[in-house]
């Protein structure tokens, strides 16, 4: 069982909902990113998605596009991010970490070498928004060897009949995209969001997380019986940007969201 699965099991036992965040690695720099990871762990985040900045992030809205651009301009590289995570692990970070990245970053590094490095550095999962099920065979052959890093399945409101196929080999959790389009739009979930989440729930034993367009626990309250957790990205990045990326802000935000999320489910 890897760190994500371990955490999901604990949450299930405690009947708690998961709070998952996304931050862009290297914004404003890698030292700050390390502090933000440690702060989020203190604040009670269950998983952190670490965005690996890419020049052409087609699944992301303006906030993460801008964040990626700035991180790259400030010198963030994949190799540097791996080393930063290794240091954070050495300093006691035990939080499950998922890399959210585009497939070209993996290909350019070398798929086999990348997967191996994920294992060494303590990357527990990968979310690759431009790698649909049909194109996953190449990376799966290596992930299946190490078994340390999980490929998190993404499901969309229009996945429909594809859902059983997407979830068949899935581990960790399911990432349900709340609306069509890109990250960081307003919390206008897809009009069919409820039947969609119900279909996903029926198709899997795995916890179901929802992301895209979420800012507060109140945004997901109407759906609390259908999801096992919420993912916040663009909103957190904006908040951090407005507050000089102070670790305390990240810690407080995580603590409050996690509390409200679980209070609202009582």
């Amino acid at each position, binding site marked *: 069982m890897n760190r994500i699965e371990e955490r999901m099991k604990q949450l299930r036992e405690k009947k708690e909902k998961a709070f998952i965040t996304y931050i862009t690695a290297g914004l404003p720099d890698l030292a700050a990113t390390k502090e933000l990871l440690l702060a989020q762990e203190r604040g009670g985040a269950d998983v952190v998605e670490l965005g690996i900045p890419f020049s052409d992030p087609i699944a992301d809205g303006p906030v993460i596009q801008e964040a990626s651009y700035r991180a790259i301009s400030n010198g963030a590289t*994949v190799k540097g991010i791996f080393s930063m995570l290794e240091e954070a692990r050495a300093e006691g970070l035990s939080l499950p970490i998922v890399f959210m990245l585009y497939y070209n970053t993996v290909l350019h590094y070398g798929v086999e070498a990348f997967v191996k490095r994920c294992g060494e550095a303590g990357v527990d999962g990968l979310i690759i928004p431009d790698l649909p099920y049909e194109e996953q065979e190449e990376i799966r052959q290596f992930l299946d060897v190490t078994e340390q890093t999980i490929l998190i399945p993404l499901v969309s409101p229009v996945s429909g009949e594809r859902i059983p196929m997407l979830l068949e080999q899935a581990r960790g959790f399911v990432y349900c995209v709340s609306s069509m389009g890109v990250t960081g739009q307003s919390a206008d979930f897809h009009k069919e969001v409820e039947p969609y989440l119900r279909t996903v729930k029926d198709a899997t034993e795995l916890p179901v997380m929802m992301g895209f367009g979420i800012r507060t626990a109140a945004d997901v309250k109407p759906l609390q019986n259908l999801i096992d957790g919420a993912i916040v990205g663009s909103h957190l990045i904006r908040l951090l940007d407005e507050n000089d990326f102070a670790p305390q802000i990240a810690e407080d935000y995580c603590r409050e969201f996690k509390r409200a999320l679980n209070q609202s489910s009582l």
Partner: protein
Amino acid sequence: MNQKAYYGAFGGQYVAESLMNTLDELDRAYEQAVRDPAFLKQYHYYLKQYVGRETPLYFAERLSEKYGMKLYFKREDLNHTGAHKINNVIGQILLAKRMGKKKVIAETGAGQHGVATATGAALFDMECTIFMGEEDIKRQALNVMRMEMLGATVVSVRSGSNTLKDATNEAIRTWAKTAEDTFYVIGSAVGPYPYPKIVKEFQSVISREAKRQIVEAEGRLPDVVMACVGGGSNAIGMFAEFIGEEDVKLIGVEAGGKGIETGEHASAMAKGTPGVLHGMRSYLLQDEDGNIQLAHSISAGLDYPGVGPEHSYLRDCGRAEYVTVTDVEAMDALMELCRVEGIIPAIESAHAVAYALKYASGQREKLGAQKAAQQVMVICLSGRGDKDVNTISDYLAGKGYLN
């Protein structure tokens, strides 16, 4: 493996999960359409009566004399809207209508594909939005005005390098949001499967005509077929009917910008490595960390850091050869074609002309004048240069150019 989507190791469908059903629906609709005689009849009707096909295969007598080889130009510049782009747009918009879509979106670099899409949208009464990089909007103000006159909304894209690559990213993002009622008209032989296949089919009219025309004129197939390559739509259309004719040499000409050695160029196949961008796996210009690099070319239409996946395949299996021509060489050839033949080509097409002249001179040295004079070359003149007069005048005035 997702085999049908690949040309050797290239192609595929590297898009968000939310677009996979859309791509599948598109593929099925396309396969039905191209087997439906009524659809084909309609497509060919508009190509003939609206676009003005067939286009001539013009024997450039004076240029042939001067460079010592028989040079024929496939005159795609004479199409309505001024380039080959309209061939594909008519096909895709008819397909969009057939699928019941009411809106179309497109990306554009030089603006030729944007103008063609806006034209098709006006003709078939569809709502049209064109994504164009802020930098390209400045370079191609005339085409922006054309699109707006035709009723399209032009969205200025301000992200990354503010050029074609970024306009394409934004078009893909918008498509992911709106695919339920919106058709994405891709202008080049790029993108996720089935787009490279669709664009090739709708552009192959170029080589179907050219093959028949050259056999009529010369009684045989050409020795060489040449076209410029950005994403590669005119080239794949020009090559299509000749790929199976092994004695015909296929040459694609990429933009060498300020020179390959300067790093400021747009030659994905000369210096690129395989990667994933815009839904496809193909040769790309990228840095040591896998970020996509800026392409540089005096020609906005070739200013793209990738190339269509079938070209990557044709390169790797050796069926086609890809070469580069610099900005300066292209501009010299452009002026040469103006003065010797009275044709103002698009700067994109001038790249193919430049290498054609270089190749002809090389053959004369290699084979001797007599033998070289018997060789036949067909060059795709993909577009006309009217849109480029501002760039040309800045260049001639020694002011350089944007980008």
